[in-house]
């Protein structure tokens, strides 16, 4: 039924068709509410990509999703389903924040940032360790344990924020705001090099770190011996055993890397934007990461693109809600749902049709 299609069709045309279909249905919903769908799409696109600040926000959100998406993707290659990105990122925020709180009065940002990044990754990894260990050693299902660890992370963080980290006399359960040195620089230089004005967008150097993480994950998975072991274990555990790959070791290491990536995500909101440890700092990015990883087919480039798509939906959606008060923020969630549905769940819907339409043309190409 499915002919082999050229890569540009599989990776370019079909995703575009899917996206278009999602937007079409979203447009119908918008029309039902009595607003102009075209205008809505224009607002989303314009809001997400049309001007500097919008682009800045899009990339800011995308930064979060890249990290959490990569976290899920790495685990996925080992056949592990890490639903715990949310909790790992939350606890990672504690690591990042503690590093900043401890050092922001002594060191410059470029010395604090690596420490904070390491701390975030280490805390995130630590939060992934037990579920990994239990899965590898005791056979407890990693999906459940990571879900449970999400709840535990929330509980731990509320406790710490309210009882330990909160500023005396302040209302909000959050840590003190970091000094200047506890803040990551913004990317104005990069944006203006691209001809944009970043404006108020909190885009910061953790975006560059996210890009580096994409390269890192790509190299790890496809270029290293460890990555080879991870993929082998994920694709065929029996063959992995045969090849002398220790399942416990691979499971634990993979989850540590996955949790570390999720923990790194906290760098963006904590050190890059809010400059303090605050409630719910992961803000659902851990869950969006699942969709991002799956839509990006667990490939870093795909994750990057999917993350930008989601970032654009977040930012463009906010813009839409702003400009069209009748469209509430819930509409944005609906649009996200439709995009995930069409680009993910129904991704093969148009494939047979495309294959049939392109068949005569492709055959000629072959011959």
């Amino acid at each position, binding site marked *: 039924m*499915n002919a082999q299609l050229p890569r540009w069709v599989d990776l370019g045309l079909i995703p575009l068709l899917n996206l278009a279909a999602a937007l079409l249905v979203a447009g119908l919903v918008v029309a039902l509410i009595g607003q102009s769908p075209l205008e809505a799409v224009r607002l989303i696109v314009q809001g997400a990509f049309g001007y500097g600040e919008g682009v800045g926000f899009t990339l800011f959100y995308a930064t979060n999703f890249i990290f959490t998406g990569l976290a899920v993707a790495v685990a996925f290659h080992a056949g592990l389903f890490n639903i715990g990105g949310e909790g790992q990122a939350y606890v990672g925020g504690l690591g990042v924040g503690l590093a900043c709180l401890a050092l922001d009065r002594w060191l410059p940002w470029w010395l604090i940032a690596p420490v904070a990044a390491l701390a975030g990754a280490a805390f995130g990894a630590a939060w992934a360790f037990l579920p990994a260990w239990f899965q590898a050693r005791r056979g407890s299902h990693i999906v459940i*344990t990571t879900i449970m660890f999400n709840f535990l992370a929330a509980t731990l963080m509320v406790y710490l924020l309210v009882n330990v980290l909160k500023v005396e006399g302040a209302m909000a359960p959050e840590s003190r705001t970091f000094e200047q040195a506890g803040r990551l620089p913004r990317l104005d230089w990069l944006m203006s090099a691209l001809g944009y004005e970043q404006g108020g967008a909190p885009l910061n150097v953790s975006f560059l770190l996210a890009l580096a993480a994409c390269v890192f994950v790509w190299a790890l998975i496809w270029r290293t011996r460890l990555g080879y072991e991870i993929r082998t274990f994920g694709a065929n555990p029996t063959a992995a055993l045969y090849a002398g790959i220790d399942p416990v070791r691979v499971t634990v290491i993979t989850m540590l890397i996955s949790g570390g990536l999720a923990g790194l995500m906290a760098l963006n909101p904590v050190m890059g934007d809010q400059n303090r440890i605050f409630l719910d700092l992961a803000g659902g990015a851990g869950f969006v990461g699942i969709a991002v990883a799956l839509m990006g087919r667990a490939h870093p480039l795909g994750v990057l693109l999917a993350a930008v798509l989601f970032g654009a939906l977040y930012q463009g959606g906010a813009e839409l809600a702003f400009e069209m008060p009748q469209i509430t923020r819930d509409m944005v969630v609906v649009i996200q*749902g439709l995009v995930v*549905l069409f680009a993910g*769940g*129904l*991704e093969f819907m148009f494939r047979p049709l495309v294959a049939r339409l392109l068949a005569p043309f492709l055959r000629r190409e072959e011959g």
Partner: protein
Amino acid sequence: MFDAAILILDSTVRLSTPLLLVCLAGLYSERAGVIDIGLEGKLLAGAFAAAAAAAVFGSPWIGLAAAVGVSIALALLHGLGCITFRGNQIVSGVAINFLAAGLTALLGQAWFSQGGRTPALGPEQRFGELSLPLAQTLADVPVLGGIWSELISGHSILVYLAFAMAPITWWTLGRTRFGLRLRAVGENPAAVDTAGISVARMRYLAVACCGALCGAAGAYLSTAQSAGFIKDMSAGKGFIALAALIFAKWRPIPAMFACLLFGFLDAAAIRLQGVSLPVIGSAPVELIQALPYLLTVVLLAGFIGAARPPRAGGVPYVKER
């Protein structure tokens, strides 16, 4: 002491009911090889539909019907994605969750203008508590009265439905043609196909069952346990139910006990708050709240061996590659 125990158990029953319905829903789907991470969304959509319909038409039964209908529709959408078009089941489930969260709030606001809430439901629009025979008479008999009148009697009809569904599901899976085929299609769809049965049809039936039960659970949430729909009111129950399903290794009767366990932990946590315990004294609220999750992890790591999921779970059935 005994009374306190009865009250905790009573609360356990109430809290486990939506978990159990959703857990069994997931069981139908996953035993047929369709992983369903969208349980949460279907539960939420069901809760919304039930409350909205009950508010408009004034009857919880119409609400239940609407909930079941809407949840089945979402389940079929999930099916369309991962049965017909062979998409990724997890992505499709995630999409359902997003859609349900967004659409319930959006439609709720559009229809009722109460910020995504449905109007508060009056007693006649909700499922009331059923009083079983003799509940009044026995109420004052020690022990038995507590058990019969408090614990067993006085729940909504959906509670009895949920607890009846566990054995019914067991019987259906084990004793009927439908059940045999459903289990087979989750283990080896190719075997089902070569036996001349349509894999797609079986899987669609399974996800429809899943939708129906999620709908019932939603109706319970919004028209029995509470009196109306609130945005995001499912509060993660779909995921806990999924955990219970894995915990129970995809078997109906253990699923019931797993849900009861989760319900019990929750009920206990609710009642332990602020109570001064021996040895530790009054524990921080957070610790108590974390207890169910901690215990789950401990139980999983300690007592439950590796679970073997239905073999074909998560894999779309592809005959010709």
